[in-house]
C-alpha cells in the first residue's frame, strides 16, 4: 500500500515524513524522530508508558496510527522541560519526592499528570489516583508519585505557572 506524507508537530517542531499507514505514532516518534523518551511497555494500551499529549489530551501512542496524528499538536516527554536546568514543576517534583525509580514509567506517568493538572489544577488525592489509573508502575508503589503530583499542583498554583 502507498506510503502517506504527513506532517507531525512534535514539541513545537514540524517534521515532514513519509510513512506506511500501518505505523504507530510511538514507533515513528522513537525510530524516525529519535524521541526515545516515549516508552513501550505493553503495546496494547494497558500500561501507559507510551502516553503522549495530542492536542492537549493524553493518548496511548501505541494505539494511534501515525497518519492520524497528521498536523496534530503532539507533546512528548522531551518537550516538557525548557532545558535540563529548567525542569517542569512536575518533573522537578518527581525527582525531589523519589517518585522515580527505574524510570521506565516516568515519561508516561508525567504526561498523564500533566493532562490531569491541565484539566483540574487542584486535584484531590483521589482524583490524582484516578488520573494515574492508566499508568502502571512496578517500582514505587505509586504513593510518592501521588505526593509529587500534589506538590507540583500546589507549586504551580502558587506561582501561577501554566502546565
Amino acid at each position, binding site marked *: 500500500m502507498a506510503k502517506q506524507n504527513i506532517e507531525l508537530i512534535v514539541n513545537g517542531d514540524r517534521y515532514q515524513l513519509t510513512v506506511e499507514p500501518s505505523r504507530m505514532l510511538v514507533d515513528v516518534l522513537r525510530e524516525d524522530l529519535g524521541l526515545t*523518551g516515549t516508552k513501550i511497555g505493553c503495546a496494547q494500551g494497558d500500561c501507559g508508558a507510551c502516553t503522549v499529549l495530542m492536542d492537549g489530551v493524553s493518548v496511548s501512542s501505541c494505539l494511534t496510527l501515525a497518519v492520524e496524528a497528521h498536523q496534530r499538536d503532539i507533546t512528548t516527554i522531551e518537550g516538557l522541560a525548557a532545558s535540563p536546568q529548567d525542569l517542569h514543576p512536575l*518533573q522537578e517534583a*518527581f525527582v525531589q519526592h523519589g517518585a522515580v525509580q527505574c524510570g521506565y514509567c*516516568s515519561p508516561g506517568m*508525567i504526561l498523564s499528570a500533566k493532562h490531569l493538572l491541565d484539566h483540574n489544577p487542584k486535584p484531590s488525592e483521589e482524583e490524582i489516583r484516578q488520573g494515574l489509573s492508566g499508568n*502502571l508502575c512496578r517500582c514505587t*508503589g*505509586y504513593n510518592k508519585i501521588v505526593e509529587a503530583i500534589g506538590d507540583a499542583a500546589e507549586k504551580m498554583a502558587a506561582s501561577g505557572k501554566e502546565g
Partner: protein
Amino acid sequence: MKTPSIIGQSIPRLDGPAKVTGRALYTNDLSLPGMLYGKLLRSPLAHAKITRIDVSRAKALPGVKDVITGADIPQVKYGNWRLVPQSQDEMALAVDKVRFVGDEVAAVCAIDADTAQRALELIEVEYEELPVILSVEEATAEGAALVHDESEGNVSLVRKIDYGDLEAMFAKADYIREDTFKVHPVQHAYMEPCSCLAASEEGDRVSLWTSTQTPYIVQCLLASTLGLPENNVRVMKVQVGGGFGGKMELRPWEFCASFMSLRTGRPVKFTLTRADELAFGRRRHAMSIYSKVGFSKDGKLLAKDFQVMLDGGAYNAMGPTATFLCGTFGNMLYNYPAYRYFGRHVYTNKPPASAMRGFGAPQAAFAAETQMNMVAEELGIDPIDLRLMNAMQTGDVIPDVATISSCGFKESLEKVRQISGWDEKRGNPKPGKGLGIGCFSFISGGVFNWFNTKYNFSAAEVKVFEDGTAQLATMACDIGQGPDTVLRQILAAELGIPIDKIRLISMDTATTPKADLGTWGSRVTLMNGNAIIEAAGKIKDMLRPVLFSELDLNQIHDVAFEDERVFVRANPKKGMGFAECVYKALRGREGEPLTARGYYTPRNKGLVSPAFSFGAQVAEVEVDTGTGLIRVEKMYTAHDCGVPINKMSVEGQLEGAIQMGLGYALMENLIMDDKGRTLNTTFLDYKMPTAEDMPPGESADVITYEPEGPYGAKEAGEGLAIPTAPAITHAVHQATGYRCMETPITPEKVLRALGKIK
C-alpha cells in the same frame, strides 16, 4: 566516630533528571548503523520431540541475514549454578526436544522487524507430542514422563536442613498442627521488557548491551556458550527498567544476538513483547508446602517440619537458590529447638520459575506466618505476643547457617503493634474489617558461591583528582533500586566530598573492576558499600601522609575527611582542602594517579548471608461481604534495615514492595490451560495494582547497627516483599472468617467461605 551527615539523607536519585526528561537511555532505545532485528521462534507445545526443522524458506526470504536452530550452536549447556555443573540444563535454542510453551526453537535476524517476523512464519517445525506435566504432584507421581531424562522423578535438586531432635521435640509438644498450603506463580512485571543489542568487534570479540541485573554472570555464561574466552565478551548495561530477579541469568536472546552478530558481522537487536514476557518469562515459584509445628501450651515453639515442592518449570534457572532460601526462611524468624526442611525442586512443562524478589521467602513466609496466626488463635495467645515469645534476637545462632549479628525483630513487633493501633482495634472488632500481621527476615547478600566465581563478590575502584573530584568505577548494577546514588553517598561520606563531585563509571565488564555478582539477594549496598569503603580507605592512606608531613603532626593524631577538607580531628583548623591534599599527594608519585581498589567477599559468615534484616507488617482491610471484594485500607510497617543510607530510597523500596505483595495476595496470577499455554498475556488480564488500589502506609524504622554493613546498613529491598501477603491473608480472616490456604485470595473464595456461593 560520628556518622557522616550524608548517611541517612534522602538524596534524590542522581539519574532522576535524565529519567524525567526522557533523556535516560534504555537498551531498546539504542540502535547502531546496519543493525539487524532479531526474532525468536518458540514452541507452541509444552512437551514434544522436534522431529524436523526446515529453515530453508526463511533463509531464502530477501532481507533475512541469518537463521539459526539448536543444531547450529555450540552444544554447551548453561545455568547460573556453575558450582554444580549437572544443574546447568539450558540451551539457548532447543535441541531435540521442547519442554514448555515458549521454549526457543530458532532465531532469525533481518533488515527490519517485519521481515524477521515473516521469516519466522516460514520456518517449518514438526513435533511429536509427549505427555505434558503441569504440576509437581503429576511430576513426582510414579511413572511420570521425564522433563529431563537425567532427572529421576523430575526432581532436579534436593535441599535438606536438619537440626535438633525433631522427634523428641514433637513428643514434648502440647500442641501440634499440620497444614498444607499452595502458593501460585506471579511475575516480576518489570515495566521494561527484556532487550539486548550485540555488536561484534575485531577478532571474535563481541559487545552486548542488555537489560540485565547481572552483567558479570551474562558475560561468563555467554563466553562459555559461544566458546570464547571470557575476555572476548564485553557486557554493558544502560538504564534498566526494573528486574526484581527476572533479569539475572543468561537468556536465549542474549546468546542469539551475540552469536548472530559474530556470524553476520552486523549489530543484532532483540526486544521482547509484553506477551512474550507474560506467557514465557520467568516467574516466582508456585509451591506445595507441608508444615508441621509443635508448641508448648504456653506458646513456646519446639519443633517444625517443613516440606516443600517447588514448581520449577522446564529448567532450573535460579530454582536451586530458591529451594535453599525457602528452607532458610521457613525458620529464620523464630528460635526453633528442632527444625527439619526437605525441599525439592521439581521440573514441569511450564515456563521456568526463577528468582523473584524474596527468592523463596515470600512463599515460605506465607505458609509459616499464616500457620503462626492459626497457632496463636488455637492457643488463645495474641499473635504478636506469640511472636515476641519466640522471636530471634541479636546473637542467636541458627545451627550451620548463621549467627545473627543484629536483630530488631522484637522492636519491630512492638513498634508495629503501636503504630497500627493493634490492641485497640482488635479489642473493638468492626464487621467486615480486619487487622492482620505478617513478618519477615531476609538476607543482605548471599555467602554461598553457587556461581563459583574466582573473583571477589564485589569490587570498587576509586580515583581522586587534584580538582577535588573523584571517580567511582563499579560493576554494581542499578536496575531502579538506586545504588548509583547510594554507593556514591557512601563514597562521599568516606572522602568527605559532595556527592555531585563523584563521577560514576558503572556496569561495563571491560572497564569496571572484577567482579560483581549483580543485583539480587539484596546484596549491593552491603557488599559493594564495603568494597567502596575499602577502596576509599586506601585512598585516604595515600592522602594522610601529606597532612602529617605538611603540618608536622604527631603520629597519634587522627585525620578527618569532611566538608572537602582533610584536617586534624582534634583541631579542625589544622588542615587543608581536599583538592590541595590530592594535589600534594600526586607530587610525590612520579606521575602515577591516585587510584585504589577495594573488594568484598563474605568470609566466615555462615552459609547464607553476612547479615539479616527483620520486620513486621500489619494490614488493615475492609471486605465487602456482598461481593467479596477486598480493599486494603492501610499498611503499617516496622522494619530493621540497619542504618538506612538513603531514607527516601528505603521508603521507595517499602512502598514498591507493598504494591507487589498486595498484587500477590489479591490480584496477580498466571493462568494456564491444560496444554500449558498461558491465558493472560496482557496487562489487562495480568492484574497488578494501580494507583487506585494502593493503600496509604505508615512505617517506623527500627534502627540497629549491623557490624558487617557499611555504616551499619543492611538490606531493604526484598525482605519487605515478604510480609504483605500473609498480613493481608490474616486480616481477611479476621474480617470474614475465610482463611486462605491456597493463594491468591479472590472475592469468589471469600464468598464461598461465607456460604454465599455453593
